């Protein structure tokens, strides 16, 4: 372990020390296991009854798809790229300038040349919220600007989602926290030495709606929140928060469980309503790990699966995409990166590097580099960011011998999980030369093609439907690889 690793470990341990071991109680574990088994049986019975009831209602109703598409309109205002009003020059510049300060925290950078649209401006409890929209390649993005946000709140949905979506509302960010600085009481000041503290005043949910939507409401466990709808977008502010004891044993305003948004209901002019569930904060593991296995179509694999990743143009050092050099970083917002990047490139013996854009107008770039020892490395990059993210390397012997490598099968995935509240996970990567096309299969039965350009790909997965399979086909249309995404 390096000294740097030790430094991180020591900070972590100072923050949360190793407990003494008191409280260990195996009998309690066994008792809970028994109780949960009983509870599970009861729950399954209830689910069966509820499922039967729902099935009966659905069978009695008109098929939803066409009715929804007709009654609520589609997303053509967004797809044509003209929702809202053009942002002012000052607003556009403010966002662009803010990128430099905020880029280290945000995966969704504002792409160069993208035109900002002003969608909603509203003030609630003295806090101003400005919602902007823009298009980044095949992504449709929203960005919230408010003085109470610690981090930038931006999120994008892929075009395929808007063209295929059968529901009229699409949340892009859920329960984004909004803070205000307040004077601390004297006890807190005495304990912490801080005269002011950040207090969570509200949370915001925003997204896109189809052309015919006239109102949106947010539902929590304890309340119904009236949203603001304008320019084919919506914004819901959850203003009240419970006061609870934090782990520091001092009161802190936070978003209570009952106040988290669970669903949104969109209505049209005729009063028809459609509810959409949203993936609340911290949902990532709700559907993963020990949850039920992925359902969906079965795939028969080709006789010879592709193992290893072979990219001929990279081996030939063919100049695909655009150059990736220290100059790139210098001209993209971080002048201080000059020396650092030069050191990086030299110390890593980079002999060839390119930047690929699987979606040319989009926010994701993939950096590819060959090292002097023949290793090939891949990383996700952003046009205005300093770092390569999730860099991974494949040793030369794995590339040439096509032996099975733990890090690669038919593709190298550079998946990015995004912050809590964001409704999409973005995944990018590179595929082997044998892969001609890829399709993303959702457990709901939906499927969407994944565009491949220069062996690079990028796609977004809704957090509410993230149990996907990425299936790769060769030129003979045979499946050569399946990945759980």
């Amino acid at each position, binding site marked *: 372990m390096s000294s740097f690793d030790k430094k991180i470990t020591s900070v972590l341990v100072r923050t949360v020390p190793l407990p003494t071991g008191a409280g260990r*109680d195996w009998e309690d574990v066994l008792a809970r*296991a028994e109780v949960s088994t009983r509870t599970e049986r009861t729950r399954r019975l209830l689910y069966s009854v509820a499922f039967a009831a729902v099935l009966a209602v659905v069978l009695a109703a008109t098929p939803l798809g066409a009715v929804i598409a007709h009654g609520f309109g589609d997303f053509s205002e967004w797809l044509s790229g003209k929702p809202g009003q053009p942002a002012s020059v000052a607003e556009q510049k403010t966002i662009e300038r803010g990128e430099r300060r905020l880029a280290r925290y945000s995966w969704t950078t504002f792409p160069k040349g993208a035109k900002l649209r002003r969608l909603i401006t509203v003030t609630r409890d003295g806090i101003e919220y400005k919602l902007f929209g823009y298009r980044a390649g095949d992504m449709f993005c929203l960005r919230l600007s408010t003085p109470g946000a610690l981090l930038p709140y931006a999120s994008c949905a892929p075009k395929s989602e808007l063209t295929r979506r059968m529901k009229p509302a699409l949340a892009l960010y859920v329960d984004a926290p909004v803070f205000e600085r307040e004077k601390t009481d004297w006890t807190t000041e005495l304990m*912490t030495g801080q005269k002011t503290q950040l207090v969570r005043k509200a949370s915001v949910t925003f997204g896109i709606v189809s052309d015919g939507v006239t109102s949106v409401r947010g539902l929590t466990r304890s309340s119904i929140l009236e949203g603001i709808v304008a320019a084919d977008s919506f914004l819901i502010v959850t203003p009240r928060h419970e006061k609870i004891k934090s782990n520091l044993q001092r009161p802190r305003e*936070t978003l*209570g469980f009952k106040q988290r948004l669970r669903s949104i209901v969109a209505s049209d002019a005729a009063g028809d309503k459609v509810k959409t569930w949203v993936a609340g904060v911290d949902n990532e593991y709700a559907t993963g790990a020990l949850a039920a296995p992925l359902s969906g179509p079965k795939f028969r694999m080709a006789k010879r699966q592709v193992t290893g990743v072979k990219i001929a143009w990279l081996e030939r050092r063919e100049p695909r995409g655009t150059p990736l050099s220290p100059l790139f970083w210098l001209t993209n917002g971080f002048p201080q990166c000059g020396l650092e990047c030069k050191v990086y490139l030299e110390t890593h013996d980079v002999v060839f590097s390119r930047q690929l854009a699987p979606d040319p107008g989009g926010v994701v770039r993939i950096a590819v580099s060959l090292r002097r020892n023949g290793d090939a490395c891949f990383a996700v990059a952003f046009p205005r960011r300093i770092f390569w993210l999730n860099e991974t390397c494949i040793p030369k012997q794995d590339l040439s011998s096509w032996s099975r490598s733990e890090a*690669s099968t038919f593709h190298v995935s550079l998946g990015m999980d995004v912050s809590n509240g964001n409704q999409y996970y973005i995944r990018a990567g590179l595929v082997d030369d044998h892969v001609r096309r890829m399709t993303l299969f959702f457990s709901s039965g939906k499927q969407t093609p994944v565009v491949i350009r220069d062996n690079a790909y990028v796609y977004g997965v809704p957090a509410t439907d993230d149990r996907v399979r990425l299936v790769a086909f060769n030129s003979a249309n045979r499946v050569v690889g399946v990945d759980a995404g």
Partner: protein
Amino acid sequence: MTKGAGLEEIEELYRSRYRYFVQVARAVVGDEASAHDAVQDGFSQAIRKRGSFRADGPLEAWVWRAILNSALSVRRRSGVFGPFELAPEPATSDPRSEDEEIRAWIAALPERQRLAVFLRHYADLDYRAIAAALGVEVGTVSATLNAAHAALRHSISTPEEVSP
């Protein structure tokens, strides 16, 4: 193909590694009582599901997965931020200390990356075990931790990192 895990093996793990499970759970949920609760629940889940353990990775990683699920679930219910949920605010206008920088960096990480850091530095798991616990590729864990460390190196700008 499933092999299943023995109750004795799970119990052995509980007795030998309990403190580390609680430590990581506490980093997620905030306080020790909730962390203990999450660990107890996680182990009870593991016992219930032990028949589905496929033995294609270490049992400990599989149990870690249950513990993390449980801890995240406890946090969802409580609505309480863990100690690494929000970046610490500097007490004055002075620059942050190195400790604060590191905590701020951890707070800014996406959840899965943050959990990878916890498993690496608290539980001392290797990449393979972390990958199994988080349900990702080994390469992704390595890449995630490398990228996260690179970001931190930059944020605290240690002298050896900026000199040529």
